[in-house]
């Protein structure tokens, strides 16, 4: 039994997927040439929802940090952007980047407090923290207090003179955020730290026993997810041109929808949140005229998926086929007979 094995990472499906992703990306780059302003705004919303979903998946799907308080960082990012541009007079683009950093930086002391809670208590604790930030910002008069504020025309003009150019810039920023987050998660999971994340996902105790610093990894994931949420907030409220504490720290808009996306799509994979985002926006378009019934349907669907198919729709589709579009695992293949290949690492969670 010589070492006649090789480690396989990409598969035929993943190579095909890479091609498809490249094609889709090229099509998205060209979208502004065809779509109108409304299409572009919807595309930006889809992109940042995808970014939030990937970030939440990293938190809940990999490190078991089920946060119900990601709206804290969306709101902080949005308010940081308004503060930097309006109060400090900084140009919009650097402010946008800095807003993400501010959110990530504020996540570290917050993590110190909320990491004292575990499991479901951690979830509600993060929600309390988000409420604290909302109430604090409602007290800040220079930022409009409880009623919020609009982005002054001068700041908007600073981004670009014409409305068309502004739409284009926000669109490419959104595309960059969505795709950037997917790539970040992909390459992170393929790295050494990604192996640690997968290990923590499967068993925290076992991960610690082979020398993984669980706490440090969790801090890193929490801060990165906050940074992504912060960038999302800055971009979303740049597009909305108006911010208020209730909109910026809305649990429904920034966390509930994102949780539904990840749960319905499939938690603990990169493909799941992508599929979930598609399903979410398709359902929203379909049920747009039914008011509250839309959220009732979404909630019921998420509950049904959690109970009947905890791996999500992606798990239902991909698992029997062994499909993987984003290869983050390593498979051990014998060199001569590729048919009898055992799997080195399981693609699904918790088995």
């Amino acid at each position, binding site marked *: 039994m010589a070492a006649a094995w090789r480690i396989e990472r990409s598969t035929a499906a993943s190579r095909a997927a890479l091609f498809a992703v490249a094609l889709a990306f090229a099509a998205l780059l060209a979208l502004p040439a065809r779509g109108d302003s409304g299409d572009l705004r919807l595309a930006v919303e889809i992109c940042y929802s995808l970014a939030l979903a990937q970030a939440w998946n990293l938190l*809940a799907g990999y490190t*078991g940090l*089920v946060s*119900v308080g990601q709206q804290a960082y969306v709101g902080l990012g949005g308010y940081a952007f308004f503060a930097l541009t309006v109060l400090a007079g900084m140009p919009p683009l650097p402010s946008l980047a800095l807003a993400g950093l501010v959110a990530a930086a504020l996540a570290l002391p917050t993590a110190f*407090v909320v990491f*004292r*809670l*575990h*499991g*479901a*208590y951690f*979830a*509600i*604790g993060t*929600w*309390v*923290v988000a*409420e*604290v930030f909302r*109430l*604090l910002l*409602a*007290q800040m008069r220079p930022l409009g207090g*409880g009623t919020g504020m609009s982005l002054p025309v001068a700041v908007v003009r600073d981004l670009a003179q014409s409305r068309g150019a502004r739409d284009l810039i926000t669109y490419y920023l959104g595309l960059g955020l969505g795709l950037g987050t997917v790539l970040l998660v992909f390459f992170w999971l393929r790295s050494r730290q990604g192996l640690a994340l997968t290990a923590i996902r499967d068993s925290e105790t076992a991960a610690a026993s082979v020398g993984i610093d669980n706490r440090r990894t969790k801090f890193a994931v929490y801060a990165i997810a906050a940074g992504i949420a912060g960038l999302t907030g800055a971009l979303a409220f740049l597009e909305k041109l108006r911010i208020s504490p209730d909109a910026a720290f809305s*649990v*429904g808009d920034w966390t*509930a929808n994102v*949780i*539904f996306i990840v*749960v319905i799509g499939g*938690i603990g994979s990169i493909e799941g949140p992508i599929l979930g985002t598609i399903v979410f926006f398709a359902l929203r378009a379909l049920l747009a005229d039914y*008011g*509250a*019934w839309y*959220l*009732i349907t*979404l*909630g*019921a669907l*998420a*509950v049904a998926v*959690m*109970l009947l198919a*905890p791996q999500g729709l992606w798990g239902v589709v991909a698992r029997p086929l062994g499909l993987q579009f984003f290869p983050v695992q390593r498979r051990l293949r014998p060199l001569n007979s590729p048919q009898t290949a055992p799997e080195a690492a399981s693609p699904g969670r*918790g088995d």
Partner: protein
Amino acid sequence: MAWTNIILQGALLGGLYALFAAGLSLMFGVMRLVNIAHGDLIVLAAYCALMVVQATGVHPLLSLVAVVPLMFALGYALQRGLLNFTLGHEILPPLLVTFGLSVIIQNALLEGFSADSRRLQAGALETASLRLGDQLAIGWLPAIVFLAAAVIIALLEVLLYRTPLGRAFRATSDDADTAQLYGVGIRHVFALATALALAVASVAGVLLAIRTNFDPSIGPARLLYAFEAVIIGGLGSLWGTLAGGVILGVAQSVGGALDPGWDILAGHLAFLLVLVIRPRGLFPKLVD
């Protein structure tokens, strides 16, 4: 004297928070289930009371005769039909299913009753007060709420430590598998725990609806107050939960007196302070 008054009113408000929290605490204690929809179920009970009052014209307190059994039955069915299937070693299913439930209840109430603010009219009870001194008076209603909280918590303590059902609750809490070996039907015990939790929540909901305005969106905030009272008091201790509710109520009341915008914020900050100084709460009994 003004401060005595502020602290006293806050302490009485804490009784309501303890009532919010008792059900949450019971469910967590028996089956380690944190019910994110707890606040929305409290609001649902308030709407049930509203319907009873509108249909029969009885005093809101009397509507409890119908609302408590209704919520008890709903709790039993909810646990047996849905939540029992989420329990296991993974933390995600119960959390996400109750989260989904919370969104469903909120939007169903919105669909059924609109976003308008409602209130249960309790007549003279709303304004009647008891003079304790020149500048000190307590309202009958806050006093009744606090008394109800103390009595319900005392009854729950008796149930937990003096009855066969309480023994089954405690045995299941300690080790569900071993409890089953001794003939405890845990699915039934879990369902009874949730039924009892919702019965208490319905009392909380009706008293809340008499005290303040309510609409379909206020559930999550009640969940947060309940959660804070449980954590401040320490897991597993019902009297601790009452103390936690009082601390939260006093913090809100004092914060509100300093600056009207700071009442809720002061409560949250008091909770975070306890979390930093004593992560296990002030009077912990259970190990998570």
